[in-house]
């Protein structure tokens, strides 16, 4: 075969126009149909071969891209728990979960699942869903399936260290949260894939598939309502008594100091859990020891950051949005019960 023939053959093989049966109706894909090939730039003493375009047809699924996923690879990532399927191995009881909950969960969710600050309330709220103004959506009052509790606890909790819980711990903590809601009554009840079917969430039938549109406005253009019916409520004057409830629901809890707000939003992650060597609020000895250097020095470390013998304090607790005054207020809030 002559050199030119072999080049031509190479060109034909490499220079193709993609005609994708899978996207025949996609005008955008046309832009990509012409690909030049390295072969056409190969130097040759002969006149360059005119590319001979032969559209190819890639059938559905014919790209053959990527690699096949192995069972082991899938197993490591396959974390979701479905209602009655994909239930994980392991088991645990409320009794097993209690200490773990106190240790890893209560700083945000409260010892009884009542929620600290504005963190989610896990227990209670039974019978409140039909309350027009203040329904309480908790695991017990609202969540339809216990699988979601297992799933979310394992994938995303504790908030600062996702996917750190074993499946036994996940079953135990879930059992404990259900116990706090009186859904599991026996603290020794062994919660596992076998006993899952015995657990029924109170609000399992509380959900309906959406059937929107559920409003039917019309394009009225003239005299669409009685001018006398206009009742202008300016921002903050609210809608009947409801506005007060919105304030409660979405706002800073009234009467709380700025320091607590900052603490809740930024500091509690570590100082509530004792992460990264952070002293917890009730660690009186450590705080008293630190205060020996003076409150202004503690403020300074909180603002500028500090690396000590036991842990690391990131500048402004890692939240650079905070002003000096806010950081100081948070420190003062945390030390409010410590003798200075």
């Amino acid at each position, binding site marked *: 075969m002559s050199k030119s023939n072999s080049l031509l053959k190479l060109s034909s093989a490499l220079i193709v126009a993609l005609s*994708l049966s899978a996207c025949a109706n996609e005008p955008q894909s046309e832009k990509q149909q012409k690909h030049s090939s390295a072969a056409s730039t190969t130097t040759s003493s002969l006149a360059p071969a005119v590319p001979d375009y032969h559209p190819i047809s890639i059938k559905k699924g014919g790209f053959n891209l*990527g690699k096949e996923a192995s069972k082991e*690879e899938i197993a490591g990532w396959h974390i979701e728990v479905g209602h009655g399927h994909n239930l994980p191995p392991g088991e645990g009881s409320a009794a097993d979960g209690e200490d773990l909950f106190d240790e890893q969960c209560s700083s945000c969710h409260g010892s009884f699942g009542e929620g600290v600050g504005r963190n989610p309330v896990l227990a209670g709220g039974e019978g409140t869903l039909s309350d027009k103004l203040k*329904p309480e959506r908790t695991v017990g009052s*609202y969540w339809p399936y216990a699988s979601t509790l297992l799933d979310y606890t394992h994938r995303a909790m504790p908030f600062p260290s996702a996917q750190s819980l074993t499946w036994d711990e996940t079953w135990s903590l879930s059992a404990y949260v259900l116990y706090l809601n009186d859904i599991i009554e026996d603290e020794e009840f062994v919660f596992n894939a076998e006993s899952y079917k015995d657990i029924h969430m109170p609000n399992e039938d509380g959900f309906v598939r959406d059937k929107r549109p559920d409003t*039917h406005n019309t394009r009225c253009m003239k*005299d669409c309502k009685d001018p006398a019916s206009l009742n202008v409520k300016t921002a903050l004057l609210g809608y009947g008594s409801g*506005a007060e409830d919105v304030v409660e629901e979405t706002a800073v809890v009234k009467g709380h100091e700025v320091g607590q707000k900052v603490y809740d939003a930024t500091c509690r992650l570590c100082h509530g859990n004792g992460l990264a060597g952070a002293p917890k609020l009730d660690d009186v000895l450590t705080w008293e020891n630190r205060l020996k250097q003076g409150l202004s020095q503690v403020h300074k470390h909180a603002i500028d950051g500090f690396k000590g013998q036991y842990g690391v304090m990131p500048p402004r607790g890692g939240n650079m949005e905070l*002003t000096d005054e806010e950081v100081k207020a948070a420190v003062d809030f945390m030390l409010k019960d410590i003798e200075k």
Partner: protein
Amino acid sequence: MSDEKPIVENNTETLLKTQSETKTSRRKFLGQAAAVSTVVASGSVAASNLPPNVPAWQKTLGKPVNSNPYGQPSKYEADVIRKRVPWLTPDSIASISFTPLAEIKGMISPNGLAFERDHGGLPTIDPKQHRLMIHGLVEKPIILTMEDIQRFPNVSRIHFIECPANSAMEWKGPQVGRLQFTHGMTNCCEWTGVPLKYILEEVGIKPEGKWLYAEGADSASMSRSIPMEKAMDDTLVVFGQNGEALRPEQGYPLRLLTPGWEGNTSIKWLRRLEVTAEPSYQREETSKYTDLINPNDPDKKDLIGKAYMFSWIMEAKAIITFPCPEKPLKGHGKYVMNGLAWTGTGKIKHVDVSFDGGINWQEAELNGLVLDKCWTRFSIPFEWNGEELLIQSRATGEDGYVQPTLAQLRKARGVSSIYHNNAIHTWKINKNGEVESVQV
């Protein structure tokens, strides 16, 4: 730019300071929020820079070309930024920022201004180490690299994203006095990516595969269940945003995009797709992002205390972006009212505007491109002579759906829903030209 300080403080910080200094009530705090909103992001005006004088910047050389290898806005735009409402979420990690809608100059939200909602903070992901796994009820489970994904045919489409919690604070009464916070949980970008159907065809879906579970690589492993019809329709696996790689806040290096649907179904930092027979009932489609309803409608007593699940579509919504609390009227005369409208069901067909609180309406003009599931600009000229006005806008989709009044929404769902508030919004123009957020 980096060595220049913004001339106006971030208003969020200003607000925080305002609050911390005065330890005021929340009502006063919000009142102040509205008051400081009129701070103008420009310096004082020097007569020496005005005609007939030649301005200072014309008499000296400018900075070298490429002084900012990645471009930055002018320092005079320093206040045009995303902002948070500090008290809205328990922490600043599982939180949200708002798009400054009053400052958007078109139908696209710039990448730096597109609102961000994270459920477990913003991860930093090396694209070389990022993988997309597709498995479940498929013939051939696969793992794709970013390079693999970009070898599939890709398309570019402009779509809005809206968090279903947009306007959530307004269900019970007018709460937040600024456009950025009443409506800023939306963005609209050109998204470039692979139609998901190509990838699903590659793995071969078994007949019993009716749902798609999608999961992110963030600390929340943010996840939703999506019906196969949507996955095979217009859903994209996106790697490009407004001509560049996705921003981290939008899911770098890879996100799902489910056009017109609840923003959080467009899973960011997409790492896994599993074909399933049933929905997975994730936290973000049971505990959250469901609409608890207590209808004010005697005919719907059976729905009291029930909740709508899988309310995917973001229904039609229009909002006036000028005038608005951040952009008051400056004196009598002629103005052009501007706004944005969108619907998750398709194209916007009409936007009507009222100046009298919804008694009479007139049709506004749609400006520029009118695209599927996309922000659409509207405008109408008007003359203002100092009278009080109650201005509203009302979107109609090509499907005939007309944006509801707040009263209609409350009749259908009560006020205990958090999500999907697409009610007609009212701005009140006061005699001094300032604009307040009100309800009528």
